[in-house]
C-alpha cells in the first residue's frame, strides 16, 4: 500500500481518451489539455490549540489553444461538454491571433510515469499525523517566553494527464508534504519570531525528525528579544546554504526565466549568452531531472522532458529557462521549465531545483579574514523585481575578527543583482538543498521548488536596519 497513490482517476482516464479524439478534429496550430485530480489534507495549530483539520478533493482541467501566435485558455471544474470547451479555447485564440505561431515542435510522448513513493503521507492515519504535530507543538510550548505559535502541515496526492494535438498522452503522479512552524516570543511590548519550513517529495519520513529543530527555533525566538538590531549599511555578508539558496532563486533565477526576456530587446541585451555575471568560481544550475526533490519531474506541463540547465558556468551566462514558445522565439531548445501550479492556470516558465554548485572554500576559511561582518542564516522571505531583490534572514550573527560572534535581530538584505553576483568572492564546499520553498509568479503560488547553495560570501551587501 505504501508505494501507491490514493487516487484512482478512472473517470479522468476516460475523459482524457475522449479529449484526445476531440483535439484531433480541431483546426488550430497547437492544442493541449490538462486533467487533474488531487486530494489535499491539512492540519494547523495556532497557539496551543489545534485550529483546523481539513480534507479537500479537487478535479478539474483545462484546454489551451494556439492560433497564429494568439493563445486561448479555458479552465473548468465541470467535466461535461468538453467539445464546447475546446471550441471556445480555439475561438479565443483565433480572435487574437494575427501573426505566425512559433512553438517548438517535439515528438509525441505516450507514457505513464509512476511515482517512486517511499512513504505516502496521504496514507498515514490522521491520528498518527496529529500525534506527531502535537509533539512538535509541545516542543514549541515547552520553551518559556513563547507568546504564540503557528504550525501548519499539508500533504497532497496529485495525478495529472497531459495530452496534445501532436498525440502526446502523459500521466504523472506525485505526493508532496510540507510543514511550517513559527514561534513568536514577546516581552515588554516587543515581539520576535523564528520559523522553519520543510518539505519532502514522495516521502513522509523527513517530516518525522524535526523535534530538535523545532525546539531550537522556539528558543531562538526568545533569544532574539534580548539581542540588538544591526545598524543599516554595507557589510561583508556570509550566507548559509538555506539563505544563499533563496538568494540564487530570487536574485538570479527569476531573471533567467525566458518569458521575461524573449520579447524584450533591452532585457535580451542584458541577458546575452556569454556575458560575465560573476567570478570564474560561480556556477548556477536549474535541474528538474535531479530526482527526489520538490521541483523534480520527468515531463513539464507542456510534455517536455526535464533537463539540467547550466544558467551560469564559470561566471558566464550559458543558459536560460524555456517553455516551448520562448525556445522557438529565441531559437534555442526547450528546457522543460513550463509549469502551472494547477489546472486553473496555463503553464509559464518557472524554476525547478535551482542551486549554486559547490566550490572549494571551507567555511572557516571564508570567515577567517572578515574583521567586521554579518553571518545571515535561515530564511524568512524573498522578493524580486528582476534588477532589485530583497531577501530576509531568520537568524543573524555578527562576525568579528574571523569568528562568529553575538546574535543580532534578523536582517533584510537587498541589492542589485548585477553588482551582487559580481561581489560574491567566496563559494563554500558544502552544498545543501532546501526543500521548504514555494515560489510565486504571475498569480501562481506556491509552486513546489527547491533551492540550494553552499555557504557564500558577498562583499558590500546592503543590509537594512536602524
Amino acid at each position: 500500500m505504501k508505494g501507491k497513490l490514493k487516487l484512482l482517476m478512472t473517470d479522468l482516464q476516460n475523459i482524457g481518451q475522449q479529449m484526445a479524439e476531440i483535439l484531433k478534429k480541431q483546426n488550430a496550430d497547437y492544442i493541449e489539455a490538462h486533467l487533474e485530480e488531487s486530494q489535499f489534507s491539512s492540519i494547523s495549530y495556532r497557539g496551543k490549540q489545534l485550529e483546523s483539520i481539513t480534507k479537500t478533493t479537487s478535479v478539474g482541467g483545462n484546454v489551451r489553444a494556439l492560433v497564429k501566435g494568439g493563445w486561448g485558455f479555458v479552465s473548468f471544474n465541470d467535466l461535461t461538454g468538453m467539445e464546447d470547451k475546446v471550441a471556445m479555447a480555439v475561438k479565443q485564440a483565433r480572435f487574437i491571433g494575427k501573426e505566425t505561431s512559433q512553438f517548438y515542435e517535439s515528438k509525441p510522448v505516450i507514457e505513464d510515469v509512476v511515482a517512486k513513493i517511499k512513504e505516502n503521507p496521504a496514507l498515514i492515519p490522521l491520528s498518527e499525523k496529529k500525534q506527531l504535530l502535537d509533539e512538535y507543538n509541545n516542543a514549541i510550548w515547552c520553551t518559556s517566553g513563547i507568546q504564540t505559535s503557528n504550525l501548519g502541515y499539508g500533504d497532497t496526492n496529485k495525478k495529472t494527464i497531459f495530452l496534445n494535438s501532436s498525440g502526446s498522452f502523459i500521466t504523472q503522479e506525485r505526493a508532496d508534504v510540507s510543514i511550517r512552524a513559527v514561534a513568536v516570543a514577546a516581552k515588554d511590548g516587543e515581539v520576535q519570531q523564528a520559523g522553519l519550513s520543510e518539505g519532502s517529495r514522495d516521502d513522509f519520513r523527513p517530516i518525522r525528525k524535526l523535534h530538535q529543530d523545532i525546539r531550537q527555533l522556539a528558543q531562538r525566538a526568545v533569544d532574539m528579544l534580548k539581542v540588538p538590531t544591526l545598524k543599516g549599511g554595507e557589510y561583508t555578508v556570509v550566507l548559509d546554504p538555506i539563505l544563499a539558496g533563496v538568494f540564487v532563486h530570487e536574485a538570479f533565477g527569476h531573471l533567467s526565466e525566458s518569458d521575461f526576456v524573449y520579447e524584450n530587446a533591452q532585457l535580451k541585451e542584458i541577458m546575452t549568452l556569454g556575458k560575465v555575471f560573476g567570478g570564474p568560481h560561480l556556477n548556477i544550475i536549474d535541474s528538474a531531472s535531479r530526482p527526489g526533490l520538490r521541483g523534480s519531474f520527468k515531463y513539464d506541463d507542456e510534455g517536455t522532458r526535464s533537463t539540467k540547465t547550466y544558467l551560469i558556468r564559470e561566471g558566464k551566462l550559458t543558459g536560460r529557462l524555456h517553455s516551448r514558445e520562448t525556445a522557438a522565439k529565441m531559437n534555442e531548445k526547450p528546457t522543460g521549465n513550463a509549469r502551472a501550479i494547477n489546472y486553473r492556470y496555463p503553464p509559464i516558465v518557472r524554476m525547478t531545483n535551482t542551486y549554486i554548485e559547490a566550490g572549494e572554500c571551507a567555511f572557516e576559511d571564508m570567515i577567517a579574514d572578515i574583521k567586521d561582518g554579518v553571518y545571515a542564516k535561515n530564511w524568512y522571505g524573498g522578493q524580486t523585481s528582476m534588477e532589485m531583490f530583497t531577501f530576509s534572514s531568520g537568524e543573524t550573527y555578527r562576525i568579528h575578527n574571523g569568528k562568529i560572534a553575538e546574535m543580532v535581530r534578523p536582517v533584510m538584505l537587498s541589492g542589485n543583482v548585477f553588482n551582487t553576483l559580481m561581489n560574491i568572492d567566496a563559494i563554500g564546499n558544502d552544498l545543501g538543498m532546501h526543500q521548504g520553498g514555494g515560489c510565486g509568479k504571475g498569480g501562481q503560488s506556491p509552486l513546489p521548488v527547491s533551492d540550494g547553495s553552499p555557504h557564500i560570501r558577498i562583499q558590500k551587501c546592503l543590509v537594512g536596519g536602524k
Partner: protein
Amino acid sequence: MEEILALAKKAAEEAEVYMVTSEETPVHFESNRLKNIQYKQSQSVALRIIKNGKIGYATSTSIKNAQQLVDNAVATAGFGMKAEFQFPATMTFPEVAVFDAAVEKVSLEKMTQLGAELIGKITGYSPEVICEGGVTKDLYHLVIINSRGGKTDFKQSIFSLGIEGQRIRGTDMLFVGDYESSCHPILKTDEIVKTTIRQLELAKNTAKVASKPMSVIFAPDGVTSSLVLPLISAFNGKTVLEGASPIGKKLGEKVFDNNLTLKDNPLIPYNTGSRQCDDECVPCQVTPLITKGVVNNFLYDLQTAARAKTISTGNGQRQGGLPSPSPHAFVISPGHISYDDMVKSIDEGIIIEQLLGAGQGNMLGGDFSGNVLLGFKIEKGEIVGRVKDTMVSGNVYQLLKDITAIGSDNKWVNGFLNTPSICCSNVSVASR
C-alpha cells in the same frame, strides 16, 4: 446543496454548506500586444459540521459526491477544534450594491480595445516602455445555507484594468503602472494613463540619497506596500486573543496619532471589497478600528468572537480553509493638506510609491523594511528624480504615533485600501 445539508444533518448536530462559483474572463497583454484570452469556470463547495461539539471541515470542486464530502468532514471532526459558536439563523442583510449586469455584457472586442488604448497612450508618451497588462471581468456567486435556517445568496461582478510598464536602460530597470477595479465596468483608461505617465515623468532623472533618517511620504500605494500588513495582523481578533497583538490590551487607549482614523467598511456601493455578509452568513458592518488615534475595535469571526467572549464583526473570511478574521476594505480618513503642499513642505526626503519585500520582517511587532521599487527624492520642496538602491525601514507603531501630515488625496488601492498619502519624519533610510 440541500442534499449535502440533509446528509450532513444526519451525521452531525449542526452543518453549514458554502458554495462559490465564478466565471472569470481575463484578457492579457504582453510586450505591448494582445497575448491571450482566458475563460475560467470554477466551483468549490465547503462543508463545515459540528459533531460531538467539534468542528469538521471538507471541501470539493464537485457537489456530485455528497456522501464523500460528508465522510471527509466527519473524519476531520474526530480531531477538530471545539466549536464555541452557533451558526447564525440570519436571513436579512444590509443592502449593498455589488452587482452590475453590465460587466458581463462587456464584449471581448471592448476589453481588447481598452487594453490596446492603455498601451497605446503609454507607449505614445514613451516608446521605450514595454507594457504588460490585463483587462478582466469576473462574475462571482456565493450561496451559504446552514442547519439553523441561515441563508445567503448573492452575486458580485468585478471589472478590473491594470498595467505595468517596464523601462530598461543598460541594466537600469524602472517599473511603473497602476490598477483599478470596480463592480461596474471601467470603460475609461484616463486615470491609469495619467498616473503611469506621471511616474515616468518624475523618473526621468535619478537622484542621490544620503543614508540617514529623513522625511518620507508614503503615497497611497506606498502605504499599502509598507504600513498596512502589520495593522491587518494587529487588528485580527485571533492575534489579539493570543496576546500577540501589540495593541491587544489597548482598547480605548490612544496609541496612534490624533489625526489617524481607520475603519473597515464593506458597505460602500460597487467597491470590490464590499458585500452584504461574510463567509459564515454574518451580516457585514462598518467597524471603526482607530478613531483620532484611539483603538476602537478588533475584527472577529464567529469562533474567535465566541472564544474572546464578544460578537462577530462579520469578518469571517475564507482563503481556501476555515473562516478566519480578515478585513474587507480598510478606509483611512483623509487629512487637510494637498499632496503638492505636502511635497513643498519637505526640505529633504523621499516619496515611496512601491516598496519591495516589506512583509518579510517582524510584521507582528510592526517592523517593516524594504527596497524602494518606485520612489522619488524631494529637495527643497521639489521632486528632483527617482530613488534607487535605497532601503527604508522602521516600525509602524512608532511612525503612526507621530504623523507629520495626512493628505487629502485619498485613493483606492486594489479595492481593499482607501488611503491618503501619509508623511512621517525621521524614517531610517540606507542607500549606497
